[in-house]
Structures are given as C-alpha cells and as structure tokens.
C-alpha cells in the first residue's frame, strides 16, 4: 500500500499516457482501416491488403513491437520508445480495423446501394450519405470489441520501456513488499479503461437501435 501511495504521481502520469496513446492509436488505426476497406479495390489491391492484414493479425504483438523498437533503428529509423509503440499498434490495429470494416461493407444491404444509384448518387456521395452510416451501425460492435482488447495490449509497451501503467507497476513491484495490491491496481486500471469502451459501445448501439431500428432497417 505504501509503495502505491508514494508512486501515485507516477501512476497518474502513466495512466494519462496510456489514455492518450490509446486514443491516438485507436483514432489513427480506425481511420486508416476505414480508408483501406473503402478505397482498396481491384483484385491486385485486394490481394495486397489481404497479405498485409494476414501478417499483422497473425504476428504476436510483442514481435511487431520489438521489431519497431530494436530492428528499425538498425536501418536508420529510430522512433524512440513511444514512437515505436505507436507504429507497432497502428500497424496491428489498422489490419484488424480494415478487416472489420471490410466485413461490415459486405453486410450492407445491396438494395440500399441500388437505391442510391437510382437516386442519381455518385460514389462519394453514396459513401458519405448511405454507406458510412450503415457501416457505423454494422461495425460498431466488432470495432469496439477489438478496441477494448487493444487497451490491454498496450501493457506490452512496457517491454520497450514506454512509461505506461504496466511499466510503472513493474518498477514499483521491485521495491514493494505488497505485490498483490500493485497488481490488482494495475489490473483495475486496464479493466476500467476497457470497460469505458465497452459501456460506450453498449450505449451507442442501443441508442442507434432505438432510433433507427434493426440493422439494415430490418428489410427482408
């Protein structure tokens, strides 16, 4: 307990770092994933995207992280600890999000697309007014599910000395006689952040369901 109290300022700093790093990674990888899912067309592009998502969904996060932190400097790209963590998690997150949105796009009722065309909508207008609103409904749950897991994945960044919550926890453990409290505290912090994402998703999808009815308008 004593160590937790004395280390609290460092913990608060670490929590803040974890939150903004997570928010930044989530935003960038969501946008990149969306762009890839929407705009990579044609057989060759699709195949390249599949290879990319296959690699980064398949590799252990720690391997990608260590590669960015230890291997990239060898070829002259030194991003530092936070920069490496950011790059690694964006590479991984983008791969997942691209797949999530690609699946979501495939689930949009093709009749809504046909209707948009019959109303004279061009591709960009259709994307903005019809496809993305439908995609938001279909993909919000898998998207948030990945993000909630992603919060915990950030604890791996302690391996490359990013001063986030797990890093401070491990340092504190070294000088503490009460490891249980520290570990439970760290767990609670990650669980709380993941819970915020999960609760937000519940509220958001519930709101959309009440307002707009079932996904795809319940058309049969």
């Amino acid at each position, binding site marked *: 307990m004593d160590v937790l109290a004395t280390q609290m300022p460092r913990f608060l700093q670490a929590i803040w770092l974890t939150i903004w790093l997570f928010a930044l990674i989530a935003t960038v990888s969501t946008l990149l994933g969306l762009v890839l899912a929407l705009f990579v067309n044609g057989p060759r592009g699709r195949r390249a995207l599949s290879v990319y998502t296959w690699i980064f969904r398949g590799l252990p996060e720690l391997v990608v992280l260590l590669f960015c932190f230890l291997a990239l400097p060898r070829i002259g790209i030194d991003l530092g600890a936070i920069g490496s963590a950011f790059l690694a998690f964006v590479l991984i997150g983008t791969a997942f999000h691209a797949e999530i949105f690609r699946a979501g796009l495939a689930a949009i009722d093709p*009749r809504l697309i046909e*209707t948009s065309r019959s109303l*004279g909508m061009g591709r960009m207008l259709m994307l903005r*007014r019809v496809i993305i609103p439908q995609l938001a409904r279909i993909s919000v749950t898998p998207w948030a599910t990945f993000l909630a897991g992603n919060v915990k994945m950030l604890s791996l960044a302690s391996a490359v000395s990013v001063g986030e919550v797990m890093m401070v926890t491990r340092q504190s453990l070294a000088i503490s006689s009460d490891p249980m409290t520290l570990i439970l505290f760290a767990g609670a912090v990650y669980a709380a952040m993941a819970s915020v994402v999960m609760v937000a998703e519940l509220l958001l999808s519930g709101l959309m369901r009440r307002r707009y*009815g079932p996904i795809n308008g319940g058309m049969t």
Partner: protein
Amino acid sequence: MSATDGPLLEVAGLEKTLGTQRVLRGVDFTVNRGEVLAIIGASGSGKSTLLRCLNLLIRPDNGRILWQGREVGWVQNGGKRMPARERDLLGYRTQISMVFQSFNLFPHMTALQNVMEAPVMVMKRPRDEVRAEAEALLEKVRLSHRAGAYPHQMSGGEQQRVAIARALAMRPEALLFDEVTSALDPELKGEVLSVMRDLASEGMTMVSVSHEMGFVRNVADRVVFMHKGRVCEAGDPKDVLANPSTAELQAFVRSVTD
C-alpha cells in the same frame, strides 16, 4: 423527330445475359409521355431486369434505349460505341426514378429526410424550398403525420408511399415501379395502388411491373406481356387480357386469376 413529339422512351433490341442466363432476348417497346405501361409476365420472364435496364441500373449487353429521342447509356468515342461511365448516367437516372418492391428507404433517415435526400444532396437544390416540396409530397401520399417517423416505425404500406414521394421529389419525367405491392399485406396494397392511380390520372408517365391484374386492367393504357425474355404480346389491357392470342398469355392469365 423532335424531343417532344416522339415517344418519351423507346427501347429496341434490348438483350441482357446474367451469368449464363439469357434474361432479355431482344425487347422492343415504346412509352409515350403521360402513358401508363404495365409489364406482366411469369416469374423469371425478365421483367425486373428489363425495368433496371431502363434507368441503366443494369447495363444491357445489346440494343438501344432512346430517351426523348436521344440514346442513353452509350457514347461515341473515336467512332467506337462505348458504354457510358456510371457518373454520366446519374443525371439521366434522376429523370426516370424508381420505386422498389422492398421499399428500400434509408433506415437512418426519417420519412421527410428520405424524401429530401436526392433533391438536396444530388440536385443541390436549396434546402428550404425542397423541404416545402417534400412536405407537400408527403401530404399527397397522405403521410403528413408520419414526416418525422423512421422507416422501422412505419408499416410496409406507409414505407412504400414514402418511397413514391421520394421518387417524385426528383421531379422525374417518368416513374418505374418494380412490383411495388408484392411485399405488402392485402389490406396495405390498396393505399399504395390508390396513390398510383392518382399519379396516373395526373398524367404521370409510368412503367409498372405488376401482378395486380385489377390495376393493369383499369389503370394501364397498355400492357406488355413478357415471356422468356421477349415481348410476347402487347396492347390495350382490356383486349389483351380478355382475349389473349398466344397460349403463353392464356396460361398466364389463367394462373393469376385462379
């Protein structure tokens, strides 16, 4: 032939193969301004594909579509006849708008927003002007009280009437109806058919794929009977349906009246 004298829409030799299926095998007909044309035929006879070829949602493999005397869907490029690009078809589609069997309202928009969407976003007309017109259109389909409702809150009949208002909001020259009452319960068909009757009496040009023989007989000026991708019989519905000259139409009339 000037644009106003000739037929509004003329179709000649239309052919379409989907997969291995030859859905349209040379279809010819014309639609005059203010005319109601009904297309009937058994399931799989090519009616819905034909309708989608008319506004080029589906591109025919062969044949010509003349709209007000001018060919649409193809462009001359260095002496070669090339399919027009999708974006060059958008303006045409706003002139010949379509109502679908499954309504296809945008689920994330209210009835009023659905009606306003194309005039505001596609045609870039001023929002206030469009709103007034959209409200008038909802009144015309007797749904003023549902303007703020989302599609999932409405009955099928209400949704289909909103869809008709949405099609009318583009101020089209002609309307295409693709079996618009087939997905509705019998008691809801009437409200949609009565809106269509009103439109016909106002002189709206309509092409309607329909299984409603009452509508075909009483509202359509002309009927086209499709069989295996061809026009098998055509003419005044009262004559054609009462005295079908081909065995195919005789069989069809028997099957829908039984």
